[in-house]
């Protein structure tokens, strides 16, 4: 589905990524983990198009998208959430989520501006679909008319996930989806991400810090350290990989939860 092939990225003399390859298999949850400064965010920005790598490729569904701009990637089915809340305040949950459908609306600049029947019908259908599929699944239906800034943090993150899903992405990128969450919110978010995979069959690539979350929900894990991939495999394999334990877990497995907090 999405592959990152041998990407090199440097800023001046600093190598942020060297020889990084990741494959996110269709309908699976793939996680990229690593300590702070390992290059997770750089990799995420290469995939979403905000950084251009010096060499290597990003391929989505067989198409080389390495040089495409972020908005063009959205049109090819790439959607994402942000590490920090990036919702539009002053707008309701439903309106925020609807913004995610920008790439799907066909109404042109004029017809939607003039509120022609065709674009109004399109919008009504979209509202119904959002309520039925996305808000229902993410248990946001009860707050759909609240202003986003009035919601607790965990719910705001869920609204972001909803907005990303409305795009009907082929690949969903999650940038530290549980950063700053409490234990309960983390568990809920983990459940929603696996729901997205199981019920919508969406391919998910997530960057995460929190080992508990990653081990619990991922099908495949890639570990980065100092901009290089040091291991990849199933959660069980990663848990036992001596390099990973040395680089990231600091030798003790229960350190994971402390790190997460």
């Amino acid at each position, binding site marked *: 589905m999405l592959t990152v092939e041998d990407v090199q990225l440097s800023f001046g003399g600093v190598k942020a990524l060297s020889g990084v390859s990741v494959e996110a298999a269709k309908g699976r949850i793939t996680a990229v983990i690593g300590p702070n400064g390992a290059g997770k965010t750089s990799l995420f920005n290469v995939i979403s198009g905000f950084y251009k790598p010096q060499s290597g490729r990003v391929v989505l569904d067989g198409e080389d998208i390495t040089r495409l701009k972020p*908005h063009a990637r959205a049109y090819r089915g790439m959607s994402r959430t942000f590490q920090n809340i990036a919702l539009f305040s002053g707008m309701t949950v439903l309106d925020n989520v609807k913004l995610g459908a920008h790439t799907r609306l066909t109404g042109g600049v004029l017809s*939607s501006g003039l509120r022609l029947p065709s674009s109004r019908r399109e919008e009504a259908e979209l509202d119904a679909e959002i309520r039925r599929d996305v808000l229902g699944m993410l248990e946001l239906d009860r707050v759909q008319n609240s202003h986003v800034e009035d919601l607790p943090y965990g719910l705001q993150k869920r609204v972001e996930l909803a907005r990303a899903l409305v795009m009907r992405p082929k690949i969903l990128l999650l940038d530290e989806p549980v950063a700053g969450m409490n234990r309960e919110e983390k568990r809920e978010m983990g459940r929603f991400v696996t729901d997205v995979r199981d019920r919508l069959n969406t391919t998910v690539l997530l960057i995460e810090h929190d080992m508990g979350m990653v081990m619990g929900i991922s099908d495949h894990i890639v570990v980065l350290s100092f901009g290089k991939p040091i291991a990849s495999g199933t959660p069980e394999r990663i848990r036992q990989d001596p390099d990973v334990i040395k680089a990231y877990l600091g030798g003790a497995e229960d350190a994971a939860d402390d790190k997460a907090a």
Partner: protein
Amino acid sequence: MNAFHFFIEYSIVGIASGGVYALIALGIVVIFKSSQTFNFAMGEMMMLSAYLFYTAAVTFSLGILAGMVAALLGSIVLALVIERVALRPMMGRPFIAIVMVTFGIGSIIRGVVGMIWGPNDLQIPAILARTPVLIGDFFIPGKTARAAAIAVCIVLALILYLRYSRAGVALRAAAADTITAASMGIDVRRVVAFTWVIAAITGCISGVLMANVNTLTPHLGVVALNVLAVIILGGMNSIGGVLVAGVIIGWLEAVTGLILGTEFREITPYILALLVLLVRPTGLFGSRGIERI
């Protein structure tokens, strides 16, 4: 004719001139909203548009309608060239550097217009009828009333368009957060270029209207500086604010001119703008976090 009658009559005339202010202000606000660029060349863009209209309508004798279309097209092309060549490479640079670029563009336009068309007044074909408009027994100069009616209609149409169209949604999203907007498929550069097109349209129409009410000279653009007060009062990033603020400033100018004398006309808007900046820097309708100039 008593004093009250005069007051009302001046008020109506003032409010009418506020309509054109709103039109000019709208062009400045949309660009500010999309790219945090304060376009000091707006007045010169207006003025050049009026010269384009003159050239198309008179020199090439295309007539008023075709002349207006030609002026609009010319203004749009020019605005897109300015955006692409001078402003886009400045994206992400300090605010003051970008402001200086727009100042420079303004000076260049003024100089070039002087070279091509000369410094003298030109008479553009009258598109506004002179016959005065009577509201009750209040007497409004015909050109001012008609210019205001046209300006207000266009401002309202643009406000509604920017409120409900997808382009308007894209503009608001890009204004709030460019990275998120891009991730949702919104091409932020295109949004910025789009706002320059809007500014070209409002500039062209207001330029031709102003040249009709007054005459056409290379100094026509100075009026855009009066609009600064409108923008500060309305809020730099508030599209709806321009209309209310335009009307308030227009009214204030006329009324202070009547009561305190014409020399006060020029300074009152700036005194009000200064007060607004001290008391409520975001203006009446602007959102928080906008940069002051």
